[in-house]
């Protein structure tokens, strides 16, 4: 084990403090609206802290570092695109403004008002399916970090992650969104400090000049030898992402910031649409660092192992970064970064579990009930779903083997609903002719691309696998096509359901 007593004390103090704060908030739960959207009492800065903490998980650090290891600084281009998308939506209010003004708890709830109850239900199924599959690898990747950074035996991974999940479940089940907000705040602080300090130490350890020179010379050497290597600085270079992938990412990230339910949950919890737009503008640049700083650690790990005899046996582009940090960080600092990464894992898992539980409760189960549940019944049901999601995470996370890198898996599983729900939202809010038939067509066609990717790539050899940008872009094209053709070939919606341009 690379951890010392002082590291364990830092980690222990953080975990106990976070759990206590989360459990303390349960006393303020008055009903299901407090539990799921914090009574819509959230102000801008708390919204920023919560959004930033939820969307910067340990899984994020792992896949962005993997991108940094494989693609150098150019791997962080996705973060730049995401920041631009947040800024554009923050200034224009595109989708989020009418969505917040509609006063709904989830996106599918809006679809009942605009299309029909069945569209809401089907959208809820797709949202929950895409979200849960997406979340399925969080525990495994998080566990990989802890194993390689702390040097604990690999056989402990399942037990450690199960205990961590149980702690998160405990405060999320009791305190819901209120606990998530307060623990997100603590996690935002410790993750921020951990990321800044670690980035400075990594730069000091590897040296800026050495980093740039080694990345450049390694690429040149591989090209000269005819070996595959990604250009470490130019994302549009054919050896890196290339223009096709970047074009898909522009559409994908616009869909993420307007449609991804965990992000939208913060929009819906804000006190008004003005605050929601403000939150988006202010948080935008955070997403550059979300990719770039862990990307720096990944690139530094690549340089370190290149200069120290190559990657040790048993490591790959995903696990190289935690091993590198475990090797170079001093006593105390390793405890801080491990506590920060545990914080990142906890905030993301709690936020995501609550979001998908809300969708399952609000959009899949509630529309099927003949009589509305009592306040206690609603809370009991939402809490039971949280337990179900935790059980799914444990089992799915243990047996599923990713076909490619983590980022592509996350992007494609998210796309199961992103493409179709984005088409439904845009058409539902801005196209009066959109109707339920178009919505069904968009939902089904939008899921075809990503599901085909997941199934085909799990069974065929690497040469025959579908490229993620092809699966992703085709699902956007198919869902918009389905919405347009489906709406035009069927009757126009009644005037009451069409969006009000005012």
């Amino acid at each position, binding site marked *: 084990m690379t951890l010392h007593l002082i590291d364990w004390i830092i980690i222990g103090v953080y975990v106990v403090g976070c759990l206590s704060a989360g459990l303390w908030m349960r006393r303020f739960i008055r009903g299901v609206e407090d539990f799921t959207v914090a009574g819509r009492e*959230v102000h801008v*800065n708390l919204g920023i802290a919560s959004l930033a903490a939820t969307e910067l998980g340990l899984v994020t650090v792992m896949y962005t570092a993997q991108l940094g290891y494989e693609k150098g600084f150019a791997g*962080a281009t996705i973060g730049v695109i995401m920041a631009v998308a947040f800024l554009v939506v923050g200034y224009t209010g595109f989708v989020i403004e009418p969505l917040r003004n509609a006063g709904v708890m989830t996106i599918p709830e809006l679809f009942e008002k605009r299309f029909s109850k069945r569209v809401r239900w089907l959208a809820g199924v797709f949202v929950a399916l895409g979200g849960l599959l997406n979340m399925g690898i969080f525990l495994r990747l998080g566990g990989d970090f802890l194993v390689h950074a702390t040097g604990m035996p690999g056989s402990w991974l399942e037990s450690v992650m199960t205990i961590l999940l149980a702690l998160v479940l405990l405060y999320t089940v009791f305190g819901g969104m*209120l606990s998530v*907000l307060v623990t997100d705040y603590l996690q*935002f602080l410790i993750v*921020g400090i951990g990321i800044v300090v670690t980035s*400075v130490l990594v730069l000091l350890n590897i040296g800026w000049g050495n980093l740039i020179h080694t990345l450049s010379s390694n690429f040149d050497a591989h090209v000269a030898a005819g070996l595959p290597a990604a250009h470490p600085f130019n994302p549009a270079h054919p050896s890196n992402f290339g223009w096709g992938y970047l074009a898909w990412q522009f559409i994908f990230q616009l869909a993420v910031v307007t449609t991804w339910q965990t992000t939208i949950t913060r929009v819906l919890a804000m006190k008004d649409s003005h605050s929601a737009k403000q939150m988006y503008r202010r948080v935008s640049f955070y997403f550059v660092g979300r990719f770039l*700083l862990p990307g720096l650690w990944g690139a530094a790990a690549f340089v370190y192992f290149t200069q120290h005899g190559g990657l040790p046996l048993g490591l790959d582009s995903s696990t190289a970064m935690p091993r590198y940090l475990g090797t170079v960080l001093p006593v105390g600092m390793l405890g801080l970064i491990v506590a920060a990464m545990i914080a990142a894992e906890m905030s993301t898992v709690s936020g995501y579990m609550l979001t998908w539980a809300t969708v399952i409760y609000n959009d899949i189960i509630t529309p099927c009930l003949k009589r509305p549940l009592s306040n206690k019944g609603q809370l009991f049901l939402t809490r039971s779903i949280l337990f179900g999601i935790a059980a799914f995470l444990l089992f799915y996370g243990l047996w599923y083997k990713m076909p490619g890198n983590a980022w592509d898996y996350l992007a494609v599983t998210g796309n199961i609903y992103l493409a179709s729900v984005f088409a439904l939202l845009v058409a539902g809010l801005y196209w009066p002719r959109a109707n339920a038939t178009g919505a069904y067509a968009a939902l089904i066609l939008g899921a075809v691309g990503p599901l085909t990717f997941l199934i085909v790539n799990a069974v065929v050899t690497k040469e025959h696998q579908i490229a993620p940008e092809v699966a992703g872009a085709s699902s956007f094209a198919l869902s918009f096509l389905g919405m347009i053709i489906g709406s035009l070939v069927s009757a126009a919606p009644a005037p009451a359901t069409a969006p009000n341009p005012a």
Partner: protein
Amino acid sequence: MKDPYIIFWAILLFSSIAWYGFLVFYIGLKAGREILTLINDLRQPPPDHAP
């Protein structure tokens, strides 16, 4: 270091480190106050239960 891509990434990298450092303190203070306000608001009964 004359490569424009390297200059671009260097600016973004050092700006990100500075921005994260600033946010931790700025948002940390402001959001801390907002949590206190939120808790005070939640201590009140919901509008439909008000006397």
